[in-house]
C-alpha cells in the first residue's frame, strides 16, 4: 500500500474505534501556516538581515509548538496531522538549512550530513509504515529532541552563534539517534 493510501486507510478504516478527524482542521492549518515563514526567511537571508532571518525561523519553530497545543484544545489530533507535522518539519528546516549553507552561513559538509541523515530517517519511517500496513508515525523520544535542535541549528547560523561548534556536535548526536531508531523501525516488532 502506498503511503497516501495508508493515510486514507488509517483515517477512514478505524472509524469504529476512534473519531474521524477531517484533515482540514485548526491544528493542520497552523502546521501549514509554517510554510508562510519561508518566503520572508529567504528574503532576509538574501539581503543579509541576520536578525530578521532569526526572527522568521523562530516564528516557524513557535508555530511547530503551537500546532500540538491547538490539536489538544480543538481535540483534532490525527495520524494524518502527525505525519503532516513531520513532513512540514522536514521541508521547513531542510530548506532553511540548505539556504544558510548556500549563503555560507553554515558549514556545508555538516549540513549535507544532517540532511542525509534526515532523509535516511524519513525513508526508514516509510519502511516502518509499510511493515505496519498502515500510516503509523514512529514515535521517537530522541528524534523529537533532535528535530527541535535542528530548528535551533538554523537559528545558530542566522545569528552567527558558535556555528561550527553547534553544527559539528549535532552530527554525531543525530547519527546516534538515527541508528537507534533504525534498529527499532527495521528489527523490533511493530506495536
Amino acid at each position, binding site marked *: 500500500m502506498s503511503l497516501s493510501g495508508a493515510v486514507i486507510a488509517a483515517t477512514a478504516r478505524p472509524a469504529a474505534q476512534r473519531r474521524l478527524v477531517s484533515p482540514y482542521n485548526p491544528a493542520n492549518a497552523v502546521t501549514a501556516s509554517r510554510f508562510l515563514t519561508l518566503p520572508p526567511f529567504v528574503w532576509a537571508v538574501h*539581503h543579509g*538581515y541576520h*536578525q*530578521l532571518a*532569526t*526572527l522568521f525561523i*523562530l516564528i516557524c519553530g513557535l508555530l511547530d509548538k503551537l500546532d500540538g497545543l491547538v490539536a489538544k484544545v480543538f481535540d483534532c489530533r490525527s495520524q494524518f496531522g502527525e505525519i503532516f507535522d513531520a513532513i512540514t518539519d522536514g521541508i521547513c528546516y531542510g530548506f532553511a538549512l540548505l539556504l544558510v549553507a548556500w549563503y555560507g552561513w553554515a558549514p556545508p559538509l555538516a549540513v549535507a550530513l544532517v540532511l542525509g541523515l534526515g532523509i535516511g530517517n524519513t525513508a526508514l519511517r516509510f519502511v516502518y509504515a509499510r511493515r505496519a500496513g498502515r500510516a503509523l508515525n514512529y514515535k*521517537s*523520544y*530522541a*528524534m*523529537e*529532541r*533532535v528535530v527541535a*535542535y535542528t530548528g*535551533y541549528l538554523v*537559528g*545558530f547560523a542566522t*545569528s552567527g*552563534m*558558535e556555528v561550527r*561548534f*553547534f553544527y559539528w*556536535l*549535532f552530527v554525531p*548526536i543525530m547519527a*546516534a*539517534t538515527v541508528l*537507534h531508531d533504525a534498529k*527499532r523501525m527495521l528489527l*523490533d516488532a511493530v506495536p
Partner: protein
Amino acid sequence: MNVMSDVAFKWFITLLTGGLAGSWFVYDTINLLKLRGADGRDPLVRDKRFGYVMGLIIGVVGIIGCLRFHGVM
C-alpha cells in the same frame, strides 16, 4: 535592517538558547529519574531512556555553546 541592537540581540539569543537548554536538561533529568524503577526490557522504556539521555546531552551542548559565545569557555 535590525530589530534591536547587536548587544541586545546577542543576549536575546543567549537567553533563548541557554534558557531552553537549561530547562531541557532539568526536564529530562526528572524524566530519567522517574524511569529509575521501570522495566528495562520494555522497548518503550528503553526508547524513553535513550531519548532523555539525548535530551541531557543536547541540553549540555546548548549551555556550553552559550558560555563559548560569551568567551567563558
